[in-house]
């Protein structure tokens, strides 16, 4: 049995320890918001936060997540929720498939950088492909989130 903590909820699952975390989350636990895009850590669709650090869950074995806090798109985090709000306001998604990964990457960025520049955004988000090409709106939505945060404080 492998014990996982996902979005503050505990799960016991019976899988091979080398199963990538992605498939444990999607196929075993049944949280399908985290997406398969490439299986090689190339596209970022599968990003989750592992103890607050972004990882490509398609290349991380489930065993590496034991004892750590996993945050997926279905979870709660202050920055994630604010980003989701801006994402909606600017209507960022087109097909929407890569957006969970984009939002997790953006959450990781804002968790460590309160006011990222365009260059900071590019450096953090370079691992996330969007075939629809929503990058411009992603950038704007991250800036918008910072604006909202500043208004709140």
């Amino acid at each position: 049995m492998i014990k996982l903590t996902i979005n503050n909820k505990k799960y016991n699952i019976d899988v091979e320890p080398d199963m990538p975390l992605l498939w444990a989350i999607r196929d075993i636990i049944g949280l399908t918001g985290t997406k398969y895009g490439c299986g090689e850590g190339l596209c970022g669709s599968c990003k989750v936060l592992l103890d607050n650090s972004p990882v490509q869950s398609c290349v991380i074995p489930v065993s590496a997540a034991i004892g750590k806090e996993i945050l997926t798109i279905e979870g709660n985090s202050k920055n994630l929720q604010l980003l989701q709000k801006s994402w909606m306001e600017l209507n960022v998604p087109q097909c929407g498939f890569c957006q969970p990964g984009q939002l997790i990457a953006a959450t990781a960025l804002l968790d460590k950088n309160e006011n990222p520049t365009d260059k900071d955004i590019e450096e953090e988000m370079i691992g996330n492909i969007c075939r629809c090409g929503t990058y411009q709106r992603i950038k704007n939505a991250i800036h918008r989130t910072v604006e909202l945060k500043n208004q709140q404080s």
Partner: protein
Amino acid sequence: MRIIKNISRRSFVKTIGIASGGLILGCNTNLFSDKEDKNKNLTNFNPNLFVQLNSDGSLILIASRSEMGNGVRTSLTSVIADEMEADWNRVTVQQAVGDAKYGDQNTDGSRSIRYLYETMRQMGATAKAMLITAAAKKWQVPESECSAENHFIIHSSGKKIGYGDLVEIAKTLEVPKDVKLKSPEDFKYIGKSLRSVDVADYVQGKATFGLDKRLPNMKFVAIARCPVTFGSVKSFDKTEALKIAGVQDVIEIPRIERPFGALGGVAVVASNTWAAFKGKEALKIEWNYGDNSDYDSEKYMNEITANVHKQGKVAKDVGNINKAFKNAHKIIESTFQLPHLSHAPMEVPNAVAWVQGDSCEVWAPTQAPQTTRKEVVNYLKTEEEKVTINVTFLGGGFGRKSKPDYIVEAVMLSKALNAPVQVVWTREDDIKHDYYHTVSAQYLKASLDKNGKVTGWLHRFAMPSIASTFSPGVDYAAGFEIASASNVPFEIENMKIEVGKAPAKVRIGWLRSVINIPHGFSENVFADELAIAANKDPLEFRLDLIGKDRIEETKDPIKYNTARLKNVLKIAAKNAEWGKKLPEGHAYGLAVHYSFYTYVASIVEVSVINNKLKVHNIYTAIDCGTFVNRNTIKAQLEGAAVFGMSLAFYGKITAKNGAIEQNNYHDYKMVRINDTPNVHVEIVESSERPTGVGEPGVPVIAPAIVNAIYQITGKRYYNLPLSDYGLV
């Protein structure tokens, strides 16, 4: 969690007839089966297939086209809501299953709004007219004293009644034949910016894509397919695969020799996707590679290039090209070579199927639910009524998901295993077994007179045709693939278009903007080259080349208008401030193209510093006639810019010994956020018929970039991708 809810085919809707491709109103029947109707205690008013008004005022509108980022679930339904004077906040959108009663559901060719705009208006206007009649009846007043506003019918005396309260009466009324449509200046949603109805689900990971569909006891399947197109299994050893935890079975499936049939191969059945993928890798398979194993992209490019350096089949011949060339002051000639492209949508091909007896239900990301239904009916040798195609959200489509081969695979396996299955392609499967965008060689030759006027234009091209997918052996471009060359919007007295031979060695498909990618590229780059040869400003030269205002007679129902073409170019140039001084190492390039009945121009600002290319700004102007959702159109053009950049920078699929050499996003690269320019979009206000949006933004990007690079470096790139030259 919201999934796209489908209307069950079992819920019979009485229609009074279906014309081919058209829609005729039905009347007063419940759209939804009891099982699916959450509001079963409510009474409903269903004036037609697309509208269900419930007695609590909630309004369900049907989207008949597939949602893949194109925004149809929002745009089509907002047209109904506008004509119906409905409150947008009361609207829930539901996805139609694949059924001919909805008319054409093929979500490709940039035609959802073009085909359905008037029909959707009729659907909404009919509902409104009936609600007015219902209110007039209830109040015993003339209909002329009643009007509709924001989910209410209002009487001239000031009294009003909510839509929901009119359901009981409205449902008893005859459906009127002729209804009055709104005047465009009264539009509330059409022509404005609406947010996607699905945006909240997208950002919370709640939207159910095909890949997210789950059924109890569903088996996960991965399939090993022959590396060479149409090769077959000679023998296989499943021993190692069966040792993998979670792998349950390994079975061979045959090829179905139809355009959208399964490729065949060896299927690994497992309890989860990962086990299926691992099992597939552990298979030992010997293949019969077959006739296409000689496909070698380098050799092939040489062959088709030779075919455009000699006379081809004449597709158009106007004036006297030989005389023009003979009398030329200057002759310019260039050869263009563009590689195959793969769609590579973020969501790989996948499908869930459950065959039970002679019935089958499918859940899949498909652009073509009716085509899918036909393929399933054909495979199962069953009746259409026994096959339900549920359309999930599509994680990108771009034409790939118009071809339901991956759905046929799921149906084959569900039948064989007598269980619900999900077939999932790996990214490598997707890159290696696509219906590829064609590979092409093109040769253009033009003559200029002393004043720099173009007197002759010869365009020869050779590319495997989409028609070869439907009729094996076709080795010349089909008519629809010639049109974008023969309709080149230039005012040139002598013009000749020729087609060279190019047999297909892989499945050829349509990819966002299709033939307009190679033709838009060669026409725009070559025209720019002619401007330089004529020693003229590329913008002025191009406007002159397009020539006087005129309506071009084409074989299509919509004629093209050179004034509108020049207008988008002028707008893009104005927004870019064409001619202004740019920073050192920066330059503008332009391209303008007419496709899917839409006019698009882009001015691209690039820099080349230390042989490294960067695209800074793209100024795009589009004239797509009457438009529905400003927000979606802007998004589509921002996206088209990135799509066009990806193919210009990196797009290249090659074959060696018949097998595709690329694997995944590391060797079939995409533009990422750091490469992304600012895209500035202007939409031309127009009362013309609505035309395409999803595709026509793509073809201008690559040529505009190449033209801009020339301004900086003096080097002209005739072949893509630019990564071959170390520029990116």
